[in-house]
């Protein structure tokens, strides 16, 4: 079965979505990712969706859910590389993903994760 690979990079997990997401794939990713976070005791998750061209309300909600779940498991989540069209669609759908941190590309996302982990409580807001 098709799966989205989750790569371990030090204390972070890197998820790169390179295919069109369908509902089952999103659910599998949710399962895999939560398991991986627990297994590797990861403190940061970086989800790269730069190749994602089409989103619907379900996928949008899944992204939000995955981020919330990671946070519950004490891993900061950053979504990076969202396409303009995807961003507009999500906003029009009313899914502005509150609580999900975002960055323009993987590099900036990594930096953001490092900064937030370096902060004492591990949940430093990027606006500080």
């Amino acid at each position, binding site marked *: 079965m098709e799966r989205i690979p989750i790569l371990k990079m030090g204390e972070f997990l890197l998820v790169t979505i390179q295919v069109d997401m369908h509902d089952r794939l999103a659910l599998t990713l949710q399962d895999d990712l939560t398991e991986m976070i627990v297994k590797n005791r990861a403190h940061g998750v970086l989800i790269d969706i730069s190749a994602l061209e089409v989103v619907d309300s379900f996928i949008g909600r899944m992204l939000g859910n995955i981020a919330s779940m990671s946070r519950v498991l004490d891993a900061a989540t950053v979504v990076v*590389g969202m396409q*303009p069209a995807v*961003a*507009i669609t999500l*906003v029009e759908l009313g899914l*502005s*993903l509150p609580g999900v941190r*975002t960055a*323009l590309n993987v590099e900036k996302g990594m930096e953001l994760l490092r900064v937030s982990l370096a902060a004492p409580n591990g949940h430093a807001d990027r606006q500080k």
Partner: protein
Amino acid sequence: MRGTSSRLPEIIAKHEQDLLDQWIKEQTSSATRRPDLLSEADLREQSRTLLSGIRNAIQRGRLDDITGSEWQTVREVLNEVSRGRAQMGFSPSETATFVFSLKQPLFARLRAEIRETDPLVDEMWAASTLLDKLGLHTTEVYQKSREEVILRQQQDMLELSTPVVELWDGVLALPLIGTLDSARTQVVMENLLQKIVQTGAGIAIVDITGVPTVDTLVAQHLLKTVAAARLMGADCIISGIRPQIAQTIVHLGVDLGSVITKASLADAFVVALQRTGATINKGH
């Protein structure tokens, strides 16, 4: 209506050249003639094509219905003339007079040809209705082409009025001028997001100094733009909020709490520079 029994087709066919000369004379002497916009040769050509079109059409088609296929050629000629004149800057009445001025020579000809009163009145009524319809068609096309011009200008304005400028490495500014409606917000949002991707900017300053009024709808559009930029990983600062607008926003109960707002673009720029790690030193 007398329909097929009308003598109109026969009279027009017989006296076409004469009618044409009279018609052109009528047009050139009329006050609505615009020699500055249309040369006499062109006018003559247009009149000739239209009259021969009418002659062909009424021999085959109905007099009281110009929507049929027989009138196709006439309609096309009128469309072309009307569009051309609309673009050249003719007024609506000047354009419509092109058709209506045919009445005078046509009626004169009918009067010369038909002696009895009753048939004459009938024929004149038929001719008058026909020309009225053609005239109305001309005006409609004129109106439509003017609307097309307006529409195109609106689109031009839409693109002109939403520039995204790069203020600093990683800092974009979006000076908004004019009222924000849904269509414009869409363009603004797309432009901004596209530029964020291109430049990799982390901060965008949306300056609303030029936005005359902010109601709930405009505020919602602004918030949407900010949310979309945030999803892409760029922070937005809204600047240029005038005192009146600040009051309106609060009175309307719009929640801008999640967005950084500054009174002036200068203040916003300072914040943006601090965020990017740049420092400002006043030189001597």
